């Protein structure tokens, strides 16, 4: 009897094993999918929900969206007040516009600085190419916060730049560099430059040198060859790099906070402040949702670019 | 005992070892394999021949179990294999890339399949040693695949697939990655091993010469279907269509019309020039408009008239390609068609005079049974 039970058990086990083996694809997909649904997608719906809740002085400082009423159906209290508050308060609109402007100009600057560097690296030969690439990637591995801090040291009133300029006699007394828009631009370009160079390099590396030679052979001068052959062929890299800089830069918090001080309006900083100092969570949520709406188009575009690149690799 | 016959497919009612029935595979709207049926017999070395995208690899992958058929069924040794996963099939495959596991030694690669079957350790090492000996790699067991040459890797892949004593061995372009000389040598090794072990081989190849040399029978595939199945000589000498005539070797194709027929010989008329030729046939009827196919090596070429031949043409040599043991001539003939002829270079073409050259006037000739008629 015991033996037959054991046989039945092992039979069931091996059948369970086979059942699992046959479903290996579902199993390895389900685990990360479940994690992302719970910790990535669900939070957005909660933010959305709270953005239409009423602000309360309590902990947590927002009204519960679903109140179990007397009937079976929960009564829902929804308000668009937080959004209309954003729209009516001039400060928020100006902040969004200012964020977009700063992110756009920084992206353009990053491209202007990054493009020739990426190009030079992609045309360097052998070991030199890897060394240069390594030098570009290295700062990306070191602390973001500390790299921003390094610029505080350069730009401060008694910082290295002012000291240098006074020593050279260019200026009499320190000029204000830190806590200005200029500092924010420098900070963003500095911090995000690797994100511009790497996709550009990945794109240019695949570029066949003979293309330019063919263009030259067919009579294109260097400038014409660049604008008619190289630039169009590197467009996917330009797009990917610009999006990788523009999207996170729009919501940037650390750089405007440390280098811009109170003088530069950026939405990431306002959101953080709304949340941390004012404890107005519904308004912070509405700010976040509005930022997401602004960024959803570039994010979808980035997703498309990524998907196309992945396709080309296979 | 049908298995005892060296040509079981020639016998009525012989039991097939692999039975493919109405097998189709569609990827979205693309049909890779289109309703094919095929019997393969025990001990055969069966060739699947076709150009890229003809469906031969998909068919092989369905035999291995990597693709699930859209419809139809596969039986191996009487058992339905259609929905059996690859790891439970009595079938092994030698991959075109060899797919040797780079992080395992040669021995470990070969032992891998036996370990999965739970074979005990001493038997594994015996059988691995036996296989290594068979492929003449006994000294290389501890090396990694990266430390072997292309030919050695190919033999490891073969040993790995054979060590499990599969009922069927599938080979995907087994020789494609080797250079020409090694390929010829390996062809014969493969045939020897197959002969020794008696395992049924199914070989996919795009190389018609390889298929001809290796196979007991060949199935020629195009657009997901079989267009002819037969022994190599049968396919070469009696191609079913002009596509096959050109795919297997090359052929001069002349449009024609049958004028009369006496027993096994018909007289036909070339559609363009109205010139008449004799051809051996047993199936055409007067009034049919078949294509006359003549292989280049079956046509004689000479500066003197070839009166001994049933059919003769005259023409001018327009191109000569000297290939060493043979030469190929393209001759513009008096029937207005360019005819390709190959002839062995039995004499060293050093002396001026008997050598056939550009712009020479030549006679061409062939016998009635050297040409075939193709319905399409």
């Amino acid at each position, binding site marked *: 009897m015991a033996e037959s039970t054991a046989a039945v058990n092992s039979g069931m086990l091996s059948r369970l094993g086979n059942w699992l083996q046959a479903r290996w694809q579902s199993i*390895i997909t389900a685990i990360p999918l479940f994690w992302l649904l719970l910790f990535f*997608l669900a939070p957005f719906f909660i933010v959305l929900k709270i953005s239409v809740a009423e602000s309360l002085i309590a902990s947590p400082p927002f009204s519960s969206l679903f109140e179990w009423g007397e009937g079976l159906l929960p009564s829902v209290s929804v308000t668009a007040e937080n959004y209309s508050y954003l729209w009516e308060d001039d400060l928020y609109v100006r902040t969004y516009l200012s964020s977009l402007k700063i992110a756009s100009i920084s992206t353009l600057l990053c491209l202007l600085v990054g493009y020739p*560097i990426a190009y030079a690296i992609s045309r360097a030969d052998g070991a030199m190419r890897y060394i240069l690439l390594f030098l570009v990637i290295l700062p990306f591995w070191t602390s973001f916060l500390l790299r921003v801090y390094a610029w505080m040291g350069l730009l401060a009133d008694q910082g290295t730049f002012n000291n240098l300029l006074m020593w050279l006699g260019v200026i009499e007394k320190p000029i204000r560099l830190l806590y200005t828009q200029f500092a924010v631009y420098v900070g963003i370009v500095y911090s995000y430059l690797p994100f511009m160079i790497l996709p550009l390099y990945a794109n240019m590396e695949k570029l066949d040198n003979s293309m330019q030679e063919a263009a030259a052979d067919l009579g294109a001068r260097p400038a014409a060859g660049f604008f008619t052959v190289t630039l169009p062929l590197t467009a996917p890299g330009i797009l990917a790099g610009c999006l990788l800089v523009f999207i996170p830069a729009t919501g940037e918090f*650390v750089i405007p906070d440390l280098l811009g001080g109170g003088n530069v309006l950026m939405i*990431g900083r306002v959101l953080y402040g709304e949340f941390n100092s004012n404890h107005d969570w519904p308004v912070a949520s509405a700010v976040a949702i509005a930022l997401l709406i602004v960024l959803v188009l570039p994010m979808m575009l980035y997703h498309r670019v990524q998907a196309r690149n992945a396709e080309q690799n296979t | 005992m049908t298995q005892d016959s060296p040509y079981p497919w020639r016998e009525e009612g012989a039991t097939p070892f692999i039975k493919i029935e109405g097998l189709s595979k569609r990827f979205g709207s693309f049909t890779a394999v289109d309703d094919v049926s095929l019997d393969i017999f025990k001990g055969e070395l069966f060739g699947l021949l076709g150009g890229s995208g003809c469906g031969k690899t998909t068919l092989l992958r369905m035999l291995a179990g990597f693709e699930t058929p859209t419809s139809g069924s596969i039986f191996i040794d009487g058992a339905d294999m259609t929905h059996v996963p690859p790891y439970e099939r009595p079938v092994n*495959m030698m991959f*075109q890339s060899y797919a040797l596991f*780079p992080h395992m030694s040669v021995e470990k690669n070969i032992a891998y399949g036996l370990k999965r079957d739970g074979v005990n350790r001493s038997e594994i090492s015996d059988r691995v040693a036996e296989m290594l000996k068979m492929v003449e790699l006994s000294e290389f067991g501890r090396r990694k695949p990266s430390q072997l040459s292309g030919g050695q890797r190919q033999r490891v892949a073969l040993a790995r697939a054979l060590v499990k004593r599969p009922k069927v061995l599938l080979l995907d372009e087994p020789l494609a990655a080797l250079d020409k000389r090694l390929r010829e040598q390996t062809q014969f090794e493969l045939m020897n091993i197959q002969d020794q072990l008696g395992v049924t081989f199914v070989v996919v190849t795009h190389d018609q010469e390889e298929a001809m040399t290796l196979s007991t029978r060949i199935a020629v595939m195009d657009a997901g279907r079989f267009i002819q199945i037969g022994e190599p000589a049968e396919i070469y000498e009696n191609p079913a269509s002009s596509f096959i005539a050109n795919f297997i070797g090359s052929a001069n194709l002349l449009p024609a019309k049958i004028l009369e027929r006496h027993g096994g010989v018909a007289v036909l008329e070339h559609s363009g020039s109205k010139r008449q030729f004799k051809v051996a046939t047993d199936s055409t009827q007067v009034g049919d408009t078949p294509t006359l196919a003549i292989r280049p090596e079956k046509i004689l070429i000479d500066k003197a008239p070839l009166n001994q031949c049933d059919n003769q043409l005259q023409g001018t040599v327009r191109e000569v390609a000297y290939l060493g043991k043979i030469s190929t001539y393209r001759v513009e003939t008096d029937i207005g068609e360019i005819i390709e002829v190959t002839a062995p270079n039995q004499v060293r073409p050093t002396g001026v005079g008997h050598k056939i050259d550009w712009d020479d006037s030549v006679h061409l000739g062939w016998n009635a049974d050297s040409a075939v008629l193709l319905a399409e």
Partner: protein
Amino acid sequence: MTGKRSRFLLTMLCFGMAFLYIPIILMMIYSFNYSKLVPVWGGFSTRWYTTLFQSEEVWAATSLSLKIAVMNATFAVMLGTLAGLALARIHRFRGRTLFTGMISAPLVMPEVITGLSLLLLFITLNQMIGWPASRGITTITIAHITFSMAYVAIIIQSRLAGTGQDLEEAALDLGAKPFRVLWDITLPQLAPGMVAGWLLSFTLSLDDLVIASFVTGPGATTLPMLIYSRIRLGLRPDINALATIIILVVTIGVLLAGWIMLRQQKQLANRQ
């Protein structure tokens, strides 16, 4: 590269490298400044290093950050490898579009949004099921895993995209069941990618300020949070010292990892 164009590229390259490295190097130099005012040179000294090593706050924050980074990297590699496998090897499954979207989004999502949304999730979960009871090391780790796994998935996917499925099919053909194939064949092939993913996740976690600030609770201060709270008010020489140590450690780590990977790549190249 010849002539004017070459000279222009070379200039840009030098300018770019100077731009990237001068601020860091200056920051490191001033860590040896005796003066309490960072930009005013007061002679060579290592007093700020001594101050740093004596600070219990710094030690506590460092150990918390390292703990989170190690846990994050380990879990992110596990989840990210599965996700990368799903993306590269399984071409049709329900929710694939959503899945690929959720994998690529964290790479560009502004940190303030990720941080805020995760915090609100943790609060909601706490109200609903009582977990997480308090915020701190666990919630920070979960938040870090969520964005780190996306980076790992991309690395794994791109490694797999370049290789065919022959090896896996060969193993299946030889009688290995799917999970056996995963263990015997796929994972060993992915090992270098997993190492790279682990290192990247580790670094991303050590680097994160914004998300951690949102989802942390009382008492849990990570190293970036500590640094931020000090530099908000201006330059601090002890932070220069801390920065110097961190940058040196990271550089050595990256050099080592790069060297190992280069060696592996060379071995791989020899094989083919």
